[in-house]
């Protein structure tokens, strides 16, 4: 075990020792003076309020934050001057706090195991002194907490050293403790330190807990949060959203649930990976920087490669590359990764976000719908530990949560038929015609639905569907058979002219998945790109660009293929009761600070 709190000094030995000796002497003098002063102060304090704060340092929480930081920096500087290393290299942890609790929670009240030695490490999140000789701490680590009962009589330090040392241990410090296990008479599992090392210092004052959990007798959090249940960020110790997102480390430190959000995110992704791996999919990586931003319709980020003197776009979707790999003979591929869209930031949009796309040769959209149902219902069932239903604050945390039911099969709505039915429309069958465009313009006017220009048929339809159909999709619902004009990469429907074999999955009125039987006729693909170009020329700069390499790849033959995309951030939002995408991104994009 390597524990170098008193590291050999960094510079030449002889010289430093004498310097240090000098310093120590000075220090000792100072100390004595301080002691005297303290003594006096103590007396004064004792006169004023006789009962408390006998030896405790001035209450840290009353100091101004800047002064607090200054004090801490001075303290560190002095430590370094004394040749001490305030940032030890290594502390050997023998048990995690979780393991410690598991191992010793069965001790009887008041029982101590003084012959056992364990080493724990973590962050001090609460400190209270009970006289000079006894200090209590809450030690947090890995989402668990244990009490530390630092008793001068059990410590390797003498009483004076003990009291001095512990006066410098602050809330927020990372510490390493070697000691023995025991339970207090009240039954709280604790560790009784023999040695106590500060491993890293918290130089800032941590926001305070609302109510000191002194009376809490449990080592684990009460009502541990599970995915699919509700959260209430209003009750967090650190509430301010701006601070939470900018200083995520503080958020994680103070609000234990936040850690669970990101563990859930990680588990969602590993569930998807496991699910696809079991179906013999191959995980691949395709470029994030392209000459053409294809595969979706969105404004891309641009950048420049200096040495090659080449303009590049950040990808907006991996679709075209993944299909090229299917052409190359990898029949089942997927990629989980970041996409980038140069768009505004709001509750559901971040400039970079994570998707999973998969492509499966010889399958069509019906097969893919089944796979979607299986994957998502299975995931919800596993994460919630046995339920298909989740609770979600769809209308804000001040309203009651709604229930979203992932029990398969999911509802299916045919887009055009559904729209006609619910809105009482009779849309001209040839959606590419001017007649259809005019009809939809009129429909939008009638229902007072605004479609910002250009009023292309695709955009008008999108607005109407958003208004009438998506609004009804709270439980997972497939909206299927989108028109060709909205779906440049989807294959025409095998029996319904003008439509495609495509579906979008909506949950809580938001699109979560988008999938289709892939268009693999190169001639038709080129034609669709040409139509997109027309939309583009009429001002829709979100229409798709032609990718020649992709079209050439199709000419080598893409097998019949079902393709699928999932927005992982949005799914994570649903399972973690998050209304803001920033809740599920560790470091969301933020406006520059003023």
């Amino acid at each position: 075990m390597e524990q170098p709190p008193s590291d050999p000094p960094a510079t030449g030995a002889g010289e430093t020792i004498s310097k240090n000796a000098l310093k120590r002497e000075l220090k000792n003098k100072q100390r004595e003076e301080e002691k005297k002063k303290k003594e006096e102060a103590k007396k004064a304090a004792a006169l004023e309020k006789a009962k408390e704060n006998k030896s405790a340092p001035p209450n840290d929480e009353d100091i101004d934050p800047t002064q607090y930081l200054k004090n801490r920096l001075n303290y560190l500087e002095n430590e370094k001057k004394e040749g001490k290393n305030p940032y030890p290299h290594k502390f050997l942890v023998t048990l995690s706090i979780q393991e410690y609790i598991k191992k010793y929670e069965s001790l009887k009240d008041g029982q101590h195991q003084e012959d056992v030695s364990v080493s724990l490490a973590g962050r001090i999140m609460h400190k209270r002194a009970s006289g000079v000789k006894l200090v209590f701490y809450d030690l947090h680590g890995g989402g668990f907490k244990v009490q530390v009962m630092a008793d001068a009589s059990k410590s390797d330090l003498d009483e004076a050293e003990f009291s001095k040392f512990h006066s410098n241990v602050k809330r927020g410090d990372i510490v390493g403790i070697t000691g023995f296990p025991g339970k207090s008479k009240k039954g709280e599992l604790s560790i009784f330190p023999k040695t106590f090392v500060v491993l890293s210092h918290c130089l800032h004052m941590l926001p305070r807990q609302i109510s000191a959990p002194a009376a809490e007798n449990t080592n684990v959090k009460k009502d541990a949060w599970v995915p699919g249940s509700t959260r209430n960020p209003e009750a967090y110790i650190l509430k301010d959203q701006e601070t939470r997102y900018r200083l995520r480390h503080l958020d994680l430190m103070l609000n234990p649930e936040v850690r669970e959000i990101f563990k859930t995110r990680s588990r969602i992704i590993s569930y998807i990976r496991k699910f696809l791996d079991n179906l013999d999919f191959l995980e691949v990586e395709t470029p994030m920087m392209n000459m053409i931003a294809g595969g979706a319709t969105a404004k891309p980020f641009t950048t420049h490669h200096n040495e090659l003197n080449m303009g590049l776009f950040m990808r907006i979707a991996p679709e075209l590359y993944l299909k090229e790999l299917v052409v190359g003979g990898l029949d089942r591929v997927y990629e989980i990764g970041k996409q980038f869209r140069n768009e505004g930031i709001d509750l559901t949009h971040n400039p970079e976000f994570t998707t999973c796309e998969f492509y499966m040769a010889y399958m069509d959209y019906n097969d893919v719908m089944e796979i979607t149902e299986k994957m998502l219902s299975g995931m919800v069932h596993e994460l919630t530990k046995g339920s298909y239903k989740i609770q979600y604050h769809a209308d804000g945390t001040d309203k009651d949560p709604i229930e979203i039911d992932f029990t398969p099969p999911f509802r299916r709505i045919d887009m055009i038929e559904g729209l006609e039915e619910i809105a009482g429309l009779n849309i001209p069958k040839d959606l590419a015609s001017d007649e259809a465009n005019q009809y939809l313009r009129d429909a939008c006017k009638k229902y007072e639905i605004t479609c910002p220009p250009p009023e292309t048929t695709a955009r008008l339809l999108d607005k109407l569907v958003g208004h009438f159909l998506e609004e009804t999709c709270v439980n997972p619902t497939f909206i299927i058979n989108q028109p060709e004009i909205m779906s440049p990469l989807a294959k025409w429907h095998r029996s319904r002219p003008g439509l495609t074999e495509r579906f979008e999955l909506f949950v809580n009125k938001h699109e979560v998945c988008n999938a289709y039987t892939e268009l693999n006729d190169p001639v038709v693909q080129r034609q669709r790109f040409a139509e997109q170009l027309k939309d583009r020329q009429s001002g829709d700069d979100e229409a798709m660009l032609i990718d020649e390499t992709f079209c050439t790849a199709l000419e080598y033959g893409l097998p019949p293929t079902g393709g699928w995309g999932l927005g992982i951030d949005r799914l994570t939002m649903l399972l973690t009761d998050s209304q803001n995408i920033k809740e599920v991104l560790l470091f969301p994009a933020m406006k520059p600070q003023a």
Partner: protein
Amino acid sequence: MGEALKLLNLTWHPLKNNFYHFSTCAFRRTPRTLLIRASSSSTTASGRNRRSSSPSSSTSTSDREAIRAIRLKKVEELRSKGLNPYAYEWNKTHSANQLQDIYRDLGNGEESNNENDHVSIAGRIVARRAFGKLAFLTLRDDSGTIQLYCEKERLIDDQFEQLKAHVDIGDILGARGTIKRTEKGELSVCVISFAILTKSLLPLPDKYHGLTDIDKRYRQRYVDMIANTEVADVFRKRAKVVSEIRRTMDSLGFVEVETPVLQGAAGGAEARPFVTYHNSLGRDLYLRIATELHLKRMLVGGFEKVYEIGRIFRNEGISTRHNPEFTTIEMYEAYSDYQSMMNLAEEIVTQCALAVHGKLTVDYQGVEICLERPWRRETMHNLVKEISGINFNELGNDLEVAKQATLSTLGNDLEYKDKASIEACQSVGHLLNEVFEIFVEPKLIQPTFVLDYPIEISPLAKPHRRSTGLTERFELFICGRELGNAFSELTDPIDQRGRLEDQIRQHEKKRAAVSTNADKKEGTEDEDESYEVTLDEDFLTALEYGMPPASGMGLGIDRLVMLLTNSPSIRDVIAFPVLKVQQ
């Protein structure tokens, strides 16, 4: 966007005049106009982007276009017969490999046509021989190949005629039938019925001579994969490596996280970043050059074991070892030091080697690499002494003296540019590293941990607990290439701030020097240092909240895959590498 449109115009307009119309598609209500590109060789080449093809080396462009026209005609013929040349799905019962496996013991000339021996397969036709009433096709799928034995009498309806008339090499076919091993010992599906699932329009390159054009191999990876089956194997192995790394990390209790690619300041390494602009935020953003600083913030937040596998971007030249975007894993573990990271590196790499090869000796470009643990661990000082003969422990701290000593010892072995870079060293630490890179690195063929780097070149590593001027850092070398980089992490925010400020000062100094040189030279070649480096205040603030003692490591996944797939170039292990713009 402007740029995109320009590109589009280039791509599109030259072709526009070459469309003629084709009428068609029986099943559509409105007759559709299909646009067919009838291009001459000059139009094919014009306006292509980096990912598009150059004329094939095996088939001349005019041949190619002729074949394309013939096949498009077949597409129409199929449609006119009510067949769909682009089918919707196919129900496979087996893969080729599964059949080879199941019927391993079927004797030559034997047939197996019980009820449950009716199989259905699908894949690409890669070879075709047709005789009067018999045809042999080779079908390849994701798993391997199998022969299709097509006898006129056995096929339903007039399918044999259709096969002869409409099936070409390159088509995707679905076939149903029974199992038979031919007299010559070839396991075959005795076809009863088949369907053209996807009609291919372009000819496959010749199997043996087709894809010698290296550039084309990378530009049209899918053709490369069709023509050379071992190419797809590289990507299968790559997936295995990544999955094995993940499995190892997960089994050790590490949590996988995602940190931003787009950042306000690109920190965590020294490299020229890509710059982009976010419209709605109205600010420049940098593409990450490392994941380090954000992951360390996770440690501050209380995660004790985290890792991220992800893309890193560096705006630097391309070579057999460098692609502007590449994949790394970075991992951070609280309460451990760089010694434990060495063990972890050994664990990860050996697990991956076992997953891919089943053994710990691997061949890399003719050299046998032995991955048996433990790997050699030696300090940088000792390695430099051992190989160059210079003992930096005895050189002291005077930079000029050290430079003179180095030049006089090594003078004769140095190339001009090496001499220049030695002259340019700003500190003894830099000098040591320079000598290491020139003389030692290429000789580190077997796995070697190089320990204890100078503090001047290690701004994020903790000072060594025993040796002044050094850090607790190692790099892992295999085959003369750096595969990993790790340290006991610097946790002292004051020290960290000082070191990063130093780094910026050094960078600015170089930048100033370069810009004066550039003024003189005019038309700058070397603008390597012309980017800005800024302090990541968010990271420094996080450190002030206290980061536990920790160690961290980054491993280059592309390089690991190169090693384990015996690939000489990074472009062999990246599906779509960045290439120069094609003329």
